[in-house]
């Protein structure tokens, strides 16, 4: 490999496509949220859930909700059903906090099916989803995973779904089941953040961190993983014992930066 030649070619490539890269950058967060929504749908599909995409009445397009404003009936949602149980995925969903009257906007809400109105009801204002009707949620960040980001995410979980922060683990959530509260991050682990995430299981904290989301998407698209949010060798259950000896340098569900594992952390 002639490093200088490759450098010059890629540099010219980047210059030639400056406009497209600018659009990638400006739309990256919207696409990241949309991609995360679809990844969650694909995660549920990999666990046997049937999918039904619902658009607002009269709209042929999937309408993306970009922020907290607006009635959910004006935006698209995805319904997922298995064994007569149904959940819905919503972007930028307002939900009541677990401790008080506070209302939070989660990037992706996984709500019980049929509880969020699909059309306006005259004279009825919809403020937010009741806390007990929220099954789980995901927060999406285009940053690197750093310790304070993790602490902030646990703070969000504490305010909205604190039951996931204390043992015992809640049944029905994990790699092959419903998604636990999940932090989806474009960037990789920095500093000692991977050690922090690794310790969550021992501490009885039932959350999932899907870092390197672009790598995961690429792996899933190349059929190297069943779910775009979990690697295939991630532990299935939160109360499963952590192997004492690392398997090929990988422990539990945490990838400590680039690894030498035969399973992908950096994708093909």
């Amino acid at each position, binding site marked *: 490999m002639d490093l200088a030649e490759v450098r010059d070619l*890629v540099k010219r*490539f980047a210059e030639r496509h400056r406009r497209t890269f600018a659009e*990638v950058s400006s*739309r990256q967060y919207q696409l990241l949220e949309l991609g995360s929504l679809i990844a969650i749908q694909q995660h549920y599909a990999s666990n046997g859930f049937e999918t039904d995409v619902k658009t607002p009445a009269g709209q042929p397009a999937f309408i*993306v909700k970009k922020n907290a404003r607006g009635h959910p009936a004006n935006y698209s949602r995805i319904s997922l059903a298995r064994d007569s149980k149904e959940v819905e995925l919503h972007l930028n969903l307002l939900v009541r906090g677990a401790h008080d009257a506070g209302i939070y906007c989660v990037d992706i809400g996984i709500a019980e099916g049929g509880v969020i109105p699909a059309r306006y009801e005259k004279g009825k204002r919809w403020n937010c989803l009741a806390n007990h009707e929220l099954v789980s949620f995901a927060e999406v960040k285009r940053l690197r995973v750093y310790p304070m980001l993790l602490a902030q995410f646990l703070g969000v979980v504490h305010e909205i779904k604190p039951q996931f922060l204390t043992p015992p683990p809640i049944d029905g959530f994990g790699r092959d089941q419903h998604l636990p509260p999940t932090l989806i991050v474009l960037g990789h682990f920095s500093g000692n953040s991977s050690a922090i995430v690794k310790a969550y299981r021992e501490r009885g904290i039932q959350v999932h961190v899907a870092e390197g989301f672009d790598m995961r998407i690429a792996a899933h698209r190349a059929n190297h993983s069943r779910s775009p949010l979990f690697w295939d060798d991630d532990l299935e259950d939160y109360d499963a014992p952590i192997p004492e000896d690392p398997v090929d340098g990988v422990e539990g569900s945490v990838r400590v930066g*680039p690894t030498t594992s035969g399973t992908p952390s950096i*994708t093909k």
Partner: protein
Amino acid sequence: MLDLAYADDSGSRGRAKLSLQALEQITEELPYGIREDILGYARSVRDALPEILEQEGLSRDPFLEAKVIFVGGLKKLYALVSSTYWTLDSALVGLGQSGVHEIRLGSVSVTRGSSLHLRLRQLLTELEELLRQEGILQAVRARSYAEVISLVQDGSG
């Protein structure tokens, strides 16, 4: 010509610095966020390399490490381009299977074949072709850094 034989610092650190400088030159026209993603990832590869080499039973080799760090930066660029296109395409395909063929992102309407979709596809296609012609596409798409190291050593990445 980027000559890794001569560096300000000795050994691995100096050559790693040159690889990062090459990546800085590549990314200087890119938006800040993308640039920082690529450079930050390359630094994490640099930091993890000693452990990876030890696990693979390999000795430190400044020239090899420099190439692996550089490939690491390209892997991040490729992953960004690939995942952006495939995220959008997968969303369109996934929604299409449910009979919805258009995504509205604010005022922009995106379908398979729309301007944004085509430009992202072109970006990915050109990057893949460039890397293939330079013989490093396989290394950039490798599943693990053990594989990257092997391909770079062989010169067949």
